């Protein structure tokens, strides 16, 4: 590692954060109490580096120090300590080449040669200002070695050729596809799955288990056949649109055995058959995500009206069944359901409708 010094000439005299960065700065500063604002120094330096074309100039560092009311030398110490802060200008595409052992064993040395040939020495910026490179320590993607990081993206499973192609594209201003450069998804095996392909591994048959203990479906379909795939059965025909739960074991809500469930306190809410098109999106109630919605649907509860009509005994029973005592009352499911059943809207349902609540779209919690 060479001595790291500010390029004072290239840094000029001034630096200003971009207006859109202010929000991020406020976010990071908001994490720390007023008298400990200097804790935000690393995120702010990082933001400054992003706003300064990928490197940290001396005025940018001073700007951070001024904002956090820190002595310059203290920020200088941080900026020089972490090699992720680059104190010299870099190209539009800055390549960080991993040279640590796994990558080295898998050919990082030859990638280095490519860099030297195509770009030049480390931290040299090509004349068109597009490219520069440096060697860094492990980037934590050893399973895809050898790899480089270009700006914010990983380019993995490189060979001399594929790397050269990427550099060539970037040189000409063409975006290159990030990720593994061979036929594999993330770090999955190349060319598709090669092991653990026997379905018997996953349905329990191999261990002569006749019944998986905690499937939601257990209470309806008694003992599944040993030959079943382990996937939940399709329910009644009227529920064809219902999502098929992907995970067979959905955790807490099904930890209670069937037998216990019959002895639950309170009274089970009445069930009805509802046509698919008449079902409500229960996820619009705050506290109900896909998982809980599924569980409620299992119980035959499909509309806001049903929930709105729950008696306290019903609430007790459902809470017991779903193993979250007090939650229905705390989150006022019934109140919410009443509003929604009458065609009204709650704060939360508006957000759900606007697509602002990710947990109401896929998985909860």
């Amino acid at each position: 590692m060479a001595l790291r010094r500010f390029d004072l000439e290239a840094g000029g005299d001034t630096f200003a954060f971009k207006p859109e960065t202010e929000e991020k700065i406020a976010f990071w500063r908001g994490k720390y109490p007023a008298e400990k604002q200097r804790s935000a120094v690393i995120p702010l330096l990082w933001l400054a580096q992003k706003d300064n074309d990928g490197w940290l100039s001396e005025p940018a560092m001073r700007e951070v120090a001024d904002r956090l009311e820190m002595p310059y030398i203290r920020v200088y110490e941080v900026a020089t300590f972490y090699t992720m802060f680059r104190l010299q200008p870099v190209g539009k595409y800055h390549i960080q080449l991993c040279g640590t052992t796994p990558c080295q064993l898998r050919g990082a040395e030859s990638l280095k040669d490519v860099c030297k040939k195509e770009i030049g020495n480390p931290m040299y910026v090509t004349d068109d200002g597009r490219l520069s490179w440096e060697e860094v320590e492990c980037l934590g993607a050893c399973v895809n070695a050898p790899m480089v990081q270009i700006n914010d993206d990983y380019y993995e499973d490189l060979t001399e050729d594929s790397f050269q192609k990427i550099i060539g594209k970037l040189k000409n201003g063409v975006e290159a596809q990030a990720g593994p450069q061979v036929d594999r998804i993330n770090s999955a095996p190349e060319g598709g799955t090669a092991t653990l392909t026997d379905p018997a591994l996953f349905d329990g048959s191999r261990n002569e288990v006749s019944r998986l203990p905690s499937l939601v479906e257990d209470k309806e379909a008694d003992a599944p056949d040993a030959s079943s795939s382990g996937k939940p059965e399709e329910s009644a025909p009227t529920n064809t649109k219902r999502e098929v739960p992907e995970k067979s074991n959905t955790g807490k809500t099904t930890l209670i055995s069937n037998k216990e469930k019959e002895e639950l306190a309170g009274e089970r809410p009445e069930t009805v058959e509802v046509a698919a098109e008449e079902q409500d999106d229960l996820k619009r109630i705050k506290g109900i995500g896909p998982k809980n919605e599924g569980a409620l649907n299992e119980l035959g509860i499909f509309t806001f009206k049903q929930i709105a009509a729950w008696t306290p005994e019903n609430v007790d029973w459902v809470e017991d069944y779903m193993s979250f005592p007090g939650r229905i009352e705390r989150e006022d499911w019934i109140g919410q359901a009443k509003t929604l059943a009458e065609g009204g809207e709650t704060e939360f349902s508006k957000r759900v409708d606007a697509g602002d609540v990710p947990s109401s779209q896929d998985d909860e919690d």
Partner: protein
Amino acid sequence: MSDTFKLNIDGKDIEVPRHYTLMQACEEAGAEIPRFCYHERLSVAGNCRMCLVEWEGAPKPIASCAQTVGDMRPNRDGSAPNIRTKGDYVDKARNGVMEFLLINHPLDCPICDQGGECDLQDQAMAYGRAGSRYEENKRAVEDKNMGPLVKTIMTRCIQCTRCVRFAAEVAGVEEIGMISRGENAEITTYLEKSLTSELSGNVIDLCPVGALTSKPYAFNARPWELRKTSSIDVMDAMGASIRVDAKGDGVMRILPETNEEINEEWLSDKSRFVWDGLARQRLDKPYIRENGRLRAANWGEAFAAVKEALSVSADKIGVVAGDLIEVEQAKAALDLFRALGVNSTDCRPAGAKYGTDGVRERYILNGTLAGVEEADMLLLIGTNPRVEAAVWNARIRKTWLWADLKVGRIGEAADLTYDHEWLGQGADALTNIRDTDFGKALASAERPMIVIGEGALCGEDGEAVLASALKLANEVGAIKDDWAGFGILHTAAGRVGALDVGFVPADGGADTAAILSGGMETVVLLGADEVDLSGLGDSKVIYVGSHGDAGAARADIILPSAAYTEMAATYVNTEGRVQMTSRAVQPKGEAREGWAIFRALSDVMGKTLPYDTADALRGVLCGADGENTVFSGLGFAPGVRGIEALKQPMTSASTTLTSVSFGAVVDDFYMTNPIARASKTMAECSALASALDTPVAAE
């Protein structure tokens, strides 16, 4: 849980307070622990690893500086943990640490200024290997600029970070830091800017190796060639304990000595680096002005000229004593001029209104310098301790940092290196203080301290400011039987001593401003250079002093006197502590000690003074046997002894408070007296500091 903890150190049972570090406990047990990064006045870093000791049962050696005794556990059988500071195990550990420290150390002791007084050298001798096993290339580090005082040879640095911690904690100016990491770690200032702290020279003492050395002293001498003399500093009114190192007849350097009550172990840059001023611009023989030009003369001629100049009417003679006047000279001069009937004598060149009523407690710092550590509130009126008493400022900062001292200040806004409440510019802020939050807190404080500087006392209403501050002190409980939280912070080393001998205008006598306004036929300046001499008209000026400065330039007769390193002289610091300097070198040329000049002159004038030696003079000052004068004892501050006098309100306050702002007493920290103005080093510092004050467009 008991407050103490039992240990067995080298077979010796010892009980120490729980908050002690293991290193302190070992020292308590009489063991010597080597260290580089640990310093008792700085926070613990624990990075040099030199202080390793063996803790029986622990898997590894323990860094004793970073191990709190209270955190240790006893042995399994419940007996006190066994620590060994000697033996093969410890020796091997230290030997290994030392070998690593020396791997990248250049071992250039023969050309290193630290040689002979180097911790690394000494400890390598004591704990290191006989030879090196390291055959690779050593790392080299670029030298850094740290300004005109601190020379850096950074390859020698062992990254103990004492200097970093000193700058951040004691000096309060975060200017030094360690940049980069691992093998590339380097100590530097921000982009190699000069240090601006008034205490920066202390990093030289703190540096355990030769990485930070004194730039002015570079390659001048070896420590074993120097004659070391303990003495007292006169650059400010604190009277810090110093050691003057001299070779031949030149002062080679000045170092602080530990004095817990005054300067702890620090020294301000002015006191430390002023020594080159002692060899420049010196007055080494008497001079007489003839036909507008000064010519060298002998003492006989000079005294004859003085006699002629003093043969005018006594009320046409004025005497002004300067900032550096020693007690003996003040006493002898005062005795002589009183004998001549001169009443216009003054030792307050800036015109501060104190000392005329003869009550000593009203012009000294009764609260004492160390006393601020016991205070919980501090009100500074018209004073900026950072430039007026830089080392005391560090003590205030220390108390603010560790003991939660609240500081308020009236006067020109300034950066004191610690948070303080700025209450206003002038006397009106003092009047209104009772209504402010700070004033209310002051009234409810346990041990409030009120300190007034010359800046508040030099105006027309100086006496009224002093009176109302004293009144405030009595009201808020700053003056109790066991607490004297009221006093004046002086800036001049000679002031309190001169006031103690009564060097103020006698009945009907003129004060400094009146003496210098042109009405006098003869004006005698005793080293008074910081005064406006432009109004003197055609008065004859007799200058007694050590340096050719403003006074000497205007003088008609110059009598050369010794500087503070050249005589054993008495100084009284701002606390009223009587201390003595020692003679480290001989006076320059024909210069004489101040008192001796006036003793000789008294013969010429026919008013022979009743003492022939300095000891006899001091005998007069101490009074007859059994009599208790301020000069009877050396080295202590009166503190609460004068508490009764402070309880009396001042009656003579004739003027009322105005709303004029308090001015700054010290404009340029590095240029406050003739010695400092003669120093090249100080000039360099001053130029740098003023360049920092004036914003420059481009760097």
